[in-house]
């Protein structure tokens, strides 16, 4: 079978070759090395490492906080993207630029900044303390850090979709008698739903892999505020490369399953439309 099909665009062979080569070197090869490294362990060792109570606690925190952060970001990211896409106001460009700041900042800096604000004697933490709300050194702080660093992904994924929602559609709905909330629920949200899911996926993926900003605000108490990436680093510092690789493989597996699930959800949503047509 040949990949070659007549096309006005030249160079399919070249670009396809480059794509496979590049992906293999940068993505597949290191991942394979990780899996191989873990595979050199004895099975019982592997199970012991990845199912230790400390590891289990870290999974719960890592994935739980990441899912929570991604959810928060989809909701608030939508509102921010809506504001930026729909309204002209002084300072809009500045806010638009601010969105990308967490992209550019070294994550450790974000961590330090958050700690300054939310520590017990921090600017905001000081007022939360008497209310019994502790942010720094709890799961709340971890979620906060993950929300901060993954926020741009959600906003940037939704913004173009919102800009593209035809004003005509809203106007058509309006002349048909629909109120604003009705238009938002029935017209705008269904139209940008795929973009919202993409934003969720990206934000979640970013949050799961985050390390730098979390370690400052988390306090890193085993079982309580220790995220999986940190546990991996701890293993590395003890020169337990295989243990680190084993945890890495588990993270890889869980992330893959979640991302796959979201993708399937999107595909299902698309199919539902087509099915409705028959």
């Amino acid at each position, binding site marked *: 079978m040949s990949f070659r099909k007549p096309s006005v665009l030249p160079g399919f062979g070249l670009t396809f070759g480059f794509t496979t080569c590049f992906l293999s070197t940068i993505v597949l090869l290191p991942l394979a090395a990780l899996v191989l490294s873990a595979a050199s362990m004895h099975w019982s060792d592997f199970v012991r490492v990845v199912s230790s109570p400390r590891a289990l606690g870290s999974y719960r925190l890592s994935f739980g906080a990441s899912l929570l952060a991604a959810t928060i970001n989809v909701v608030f990211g939508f509102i921010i993207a809506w504001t930026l896409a729909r309204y002209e106001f002084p300072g809009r460009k500045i806010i638009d630029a601010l969105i990308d700041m967490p992209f550019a900042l070294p994550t450790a800096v974000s961590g330090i900044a958050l700690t300054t604000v939310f520590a017990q004697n921090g600017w905001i933490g000081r007022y939360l303390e008497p209310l019994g709300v502790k942010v720094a050194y709890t799961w709340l702080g971890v979620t906060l850090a993950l929300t901060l660093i993954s926020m741009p992904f959600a906003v940037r994924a939704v913004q173009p979709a919102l800009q593209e929602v035809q004003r005509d559609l809203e106007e058509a*709905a*309006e002349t*048909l008698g*629909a109120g604003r909330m009705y238009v938002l629920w029935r017209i705008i949200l269904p139209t940008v739903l795929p973009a919202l899911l993409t934003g969720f996926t990206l934000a979640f993926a970013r949050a799961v892999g985050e390390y730098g900003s979390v370690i400052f605000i988390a306090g890193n108490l085993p079982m309580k505020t220790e995220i999986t990436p940190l546990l991996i680093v701890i293993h590395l510092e003890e020169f337990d490369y295989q243990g680190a690789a084993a945890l890495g493989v588990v993270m890889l597996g869980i992330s893959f399953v979640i991302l796959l699930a979201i993708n399937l959800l999107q595909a299902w949503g698309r199919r539902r*439309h087509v099915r409705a047509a028959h």
Partner: protein
Amino acid sequence: MSITLDQVTKHYGGVPVVNDVSLDIGDGEFFVLLGPSGSGKSTLLRAIAGLSGVDHGRISLHGRDVTHVAARKRGVGLVFQNYALFRHMTVADNIEFALRVRHMRGRARRQRRAELLRLVSLEGMDHRLPAQLSGGQQQRVAVARALAHKPEVLLLDEPFGALDAKIREELRRTIRQVQRELGITTVLVTHDQEEAFAMADRIGIMSQGRLLEVGAPHDLYARPATRFVATFLGAANLFLARRTPDGIQVGGKTMGGAERAAGGPEHEVVAVVRPEEVEVAPARDALGSRYLGNGVVDEVTFTGALERLRVRLDEAVHAPLLAAGDGDGRSTLQVTRTRHAYRGFEVHQGQSVAVGLRRVHVLPTPLSSFTACAQSAPLADELSRQPLLTELVARMKTRIAVRIEPSLGVAEEPCQAQGEFFGTTVSAAAGDNVRRAEWLLRRGVKDLLVLPEHAAPPQRVLIHWMSEAARSATLAVSASVLRHVPAEAVYVGIFPGSSDSERHSHGMRELLDARSEAQAAHGLEMRTELHFGDVAQELTRRLAEAPAQMLILGISELRQFADSFRTLLDGGRWPVLIVQRGAT
């Protein structure tokens, strides 16, 4: 009345995109708003739908003032050019949208949906998605959706723009049929005159935010009142002609087919001749219509049922054609012939033919052409390149002639150039304007435009007349100017003395009279202002208040002209158009 618009005005960034539009649309009428892109027709439609607000004026639907009512409460159905169907919903859900919003029960909803689908001939398409339909079918769904909630008014915004010719034809018929069946008042916006002719009960033609003319398709085509409508509704040859006591003269020859020739002195007019009203024959004797002159065939185009010719008239025929061709200098006569006619007399390129005119229509516009008048050729030449003047000439599709009067402004000196003054005479505003203006007005100039060097197209035109004798002519000239300039018209009524309640109510009555005459006789919408004091002083003060203003001043005698208007004119700060009528 189903839809009533009263002085509707909408600005974008200071520019009026809909300018003082007043209109009544009757119950069950199919009304077409026709105009080139950017003429404000879509904005006006959106204003009726409630999707964009208006800055001034009122909109009523079936007697209910809806100017400040939200779109969703106006009870209109709107169809967009790009269908605007909800792509994530099926045809059924799209059509039922308005019914769901109104919480209609399932069974009634389904019944209404079936009814609507039958109406637009889309039975059985209920469960398709918009993406699975052709463009024409999608637009049918959009029409059904817009009709679902039984709106009182159906608005169509270029609904056929994205469709190919055959589908367009079919959909046109469907919409017209649906409209007749339901008897629903409908407004359609288009830039396609053929579409307008095919569908409309009445057409309203818009240009630069103004509603220029409203009428039945046939009337507008046969008897346009403005050159824009004459040339926009199908092809037209525009001539500069003379109205004489004997009739209308084109190229020095009286055209018997012309409409009534009004009495009064000879003056210049703009004549419209449709291409199908031009006859060509091998020789003068073979013509069945009034002979105009000889010409040479420049171009022959075969289009099936019709044959189009371009004929260049001989130089000896002195009938100035105004921009009939694609560019200046290439003014050729457009002729269309039916199959019957071109079988009888075949022509080919380069052939010499005799040209006759079957029917000549004279535009009622008082502004025909411009003549730049100055003391020397370079000055006149410079004046004829003045930006406001060239802009006006381009918009009015007319021409600028040049006239040299070396002793312009020197009292008692006679005219030196040959012939009378025709059309609008233009004089540069430089120094002693009032003396030169009076000189020209005393020597037969009827319309005089005093033009400062840097004057730009005005945003506001002030109108005033000194005596009742000049009133009607001033309004006619103002209407003509404002058809070509997207400016706001303001009638400034000025009464001597100071304001007291009796004078005030008398003044208000006069303003209302003036406004209704402008509207009824000239289709001119203008705002009115009431001032008390000295006329020239008040006008000068009003002109100085804002930039980019122009004055149109009607006068009927020159006795105190120089003394009154010295300050206003000699400053040379504003373009002033003086209309002199009713003088003895």
